[in-house]
């Protein structure tokens, strides 16, 4: 068994119009920029995939990565907790013009809904958002004298994930706070596509320090020295211009 694929284009080749795509990262840290850009490349060449539903904590920053995906017109709806950033102009303009749907979810609820999708838990109760506009139309229930909101799992067709080290079985480690949503999204997607800074043979990661066991991972592609969104934005990079 070897889950390695040879290149980024191959890794994202199976993503189709209308799919739900989870994208790891919190702001730029842990964002799989190279996988996102490979998806944009495919769209430019073939017109697909489009009408994507994207799940990410944010809505992109500047004109690279997730922001570039949105700018390219590939995203129909975004599910996120915080669509603001230092340079949120791409999402903001498209949203205010009615060009993209937004489902706003409290960050802890977003994380838990994704984990629930991965863990086979169709619904759970949380105190978060009770009594607020974000709980509107959601079922509520009382437990031990306190009120809670019922939330549903989130699943995806595909997850795009950034890891530090992967082995050929798909076991993963992450780098510092770049971990964030990535392990959860591996669990909740039918196909987790992972870019890793290095790929080692099975046995190359100590079984004690594996963060994402390979059972949650379907494809891994090596991207040594991955780009950082923050560095790109400080250099005023724009993926549309680079192409």
């Amino acid at each position, binding site marked *: *068994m070897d889950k390695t694929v040879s290149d980024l284009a191959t890794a994202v080749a199976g993503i189709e119009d209308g799919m739900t795509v989870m994208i790891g990262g919190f702001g730029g840290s842990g964002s799989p920029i190279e996988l996102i850009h490979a998806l944009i490349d495919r769209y430019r060449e073939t017109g697909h995939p489009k009408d994507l539903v994207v799940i990410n904590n944010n809505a992109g920053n500047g004109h690279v990565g997730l922001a570039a995906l949105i700018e390219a017109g590939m995203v129909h709806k975004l599910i996120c907790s915080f669509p603001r950033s230092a340079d949120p102009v791409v999402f903001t303009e498209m949203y205010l013009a009615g060009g993209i749907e937004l489902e706003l979810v409290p960050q802890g609820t977003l994380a838990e809904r994704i*984990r629930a*999708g*991965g*863990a*086979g*838990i169709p619904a759970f109760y949380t105190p978060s958002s009770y009594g607020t506009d974000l709980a509107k139309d959601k079922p509520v229930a009382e437990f031990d004298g306190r009120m809670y909101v019922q939330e549903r799992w989130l699943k995806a067709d595909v997850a795009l994930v950034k890891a530090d080290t992967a*082995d*050929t*079985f798909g*076991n993963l480690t992450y780098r510092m706070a770049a971990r964030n949503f990535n392990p959860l999204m591996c*669990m909740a997607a039918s196909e987790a596509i992972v870019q890793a800074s290095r790929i080692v*043979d*099975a*046995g190359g*990661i100590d*079984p*004690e320090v*594996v963060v994402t*066991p*390979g*059972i*949650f991972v379907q494809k891994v592609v090596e991207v040594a020295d991955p780009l950082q969104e923050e560095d790109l934005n400080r250099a005023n990079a724009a993926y549309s211009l680079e192409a």
Partner: protein
Amino acid sequence: MEKLSNNQIAWRAAQDIADGAYVNLGIGFPEKVAQFQPDGREAIFHTENGLLGFGQAPEAGSEDWDLINAGKKAVTLKPGAAFFHHADSFAMVRGSHLDVAILGAYEVAENGDLANWSTGPKGVPAVGGAMDLVHGAKRVAVITDHVTKKGQPKLVKRCSLPLTGVGCVTRVYTSLAVIDIENGRFVLREKLPGLSLEDLQAVTGAELLVPGAVADLVVPEV
């Protein structure tokens, strides 16, 4: 009546496990399936207590009792193994990440119901992970003798013993046959070559559908 040994039933079940499959084997008899993986195919075994990628038992005397399977037997590690806690372990189960779970049975019903955890109200009840496994794996298969020690059918119309899960089993490997469960009916796929359909039906507690050719169930001595 000639029938397969437990080793042979386990061998037959092992032939249906694909290369790279993630597999959970129930405690006891189902553990035998691991011994019969076809050459060139690598299955990765999951155990409820937080380990993927374990291998066979160590030699007696060299056990490490922190490295056990769900049956509390000592195991070894294979390259690419990973440890995790119990909630993550059952996320793998409940979240449909396992390709197949192979379990034992007291009774399997034609509607896919399984009874394999309790023989009734006497004694101390114990369930373990069985009720999670039956609703988690993408494919839930059973290996079992075709009849009880008293000769009664274990494949039945409806289970009489307490259920482990509702409508969960899709294939049964028995000492006499391989039977799929489809649309609430037993569908015969393979039977021992020397066994007549009538004789097989006579020891089966619900009607066997025979929609097409029935293959010979031929298993080597193992």
